[in-house]
């Protein structure tokens, strides 16, 4: 039992680390202004990365989950699902008007951290 719990904790930490790494790569490439992780990444022992990325250059077409395999050469060893939305759509998600897939939990901003947002961006 201890071993299972320990593995779960390690796995969660690893997934969150990789989620942040992926978020940083996307943010620094200029393809998103903020990245949010689904609660399943932050609080559950889910084995994949689930991100919502705000990008005003994307088409406002609702929730279109995109599935990606691991990319070990970039340090991403887990699969990921990414939803790209505009800022306006993100507000709709926050207001409950645009639902994420059913098994996605609450969102938590992971990159950039809220107190480090560059207001000029």
């Amino acid at each position, binding site marked *: 039992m201890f071993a299972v719990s320990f593995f779960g904790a390690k796995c969660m930490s690893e997934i969150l680390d990789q989620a942040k790494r992926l978020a940083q790569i996307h943010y620094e490439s200029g*393809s998103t202004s903020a990245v949010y992780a689904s609660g399943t990444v932050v609080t559950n022992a889910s084995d994949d990365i689930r991100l919502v*990325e705000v990008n005003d250059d*994307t*088409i406002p*077409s609702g929730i*279109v989950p995109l599935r990606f*395999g691991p990319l070990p050469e970039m340090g991403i060893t887990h699969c990921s699902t990414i939803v*790209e939305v505009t800022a306006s759509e993100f507000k709709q998600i926050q207001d409950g008007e645009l639902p994420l897939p059913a098994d996605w939990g609450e969102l938590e901003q992971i990159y950039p951290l809220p107190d480090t947002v560059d207001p000029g961006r």
Partner: protein
Amino acid sequence: MTNADAWRKAFAVQAKADFETWEILQDCPDVAKCHKLQFLQMACEKLAKAHLYDAGSQPAKSHAYFGKNFPKIAEYYYARAGISGGKYRKLYQPLRPLAGEIECLSPSVDNNGKRRDNCEYPWEESGGAIRIPAEYTFPNLNLLTAPNGRQLLKIVKEVIDYLTSSQ
């Protein structure tokens, strides 16, 4: 349903099946990247052909369709979202090289011998080294981290869905 509509729908349905297989294979770490990308290339080629039928054209038998027709596909898609003119060009231009890379995955598309890397057959590089698709990393097509990879996939997925569902 006219004959062109039937072909448009047929190519769109097959493109959807190919794209769904590409997505399923993302969860299969033992499947070589060349095989995953082959389904994406096939999905994109059929999407381009479905779009041509939708636009009243009749595509010939060729694998070189996606790169050439992606501008029209993207223009149509962006226009549906009310984006056109300069803003469309600003958003679309960075996607175009990736569309060309996907088209080059077909072994019959080699840009006059300049691009021999492909998803199916081993090829010889200019220095004489023989490359094997199953062992090649396709560094130009890391769509997870390429700045515009997600946008391109979103357009492909959305247009396939549209062409599949429209009457």
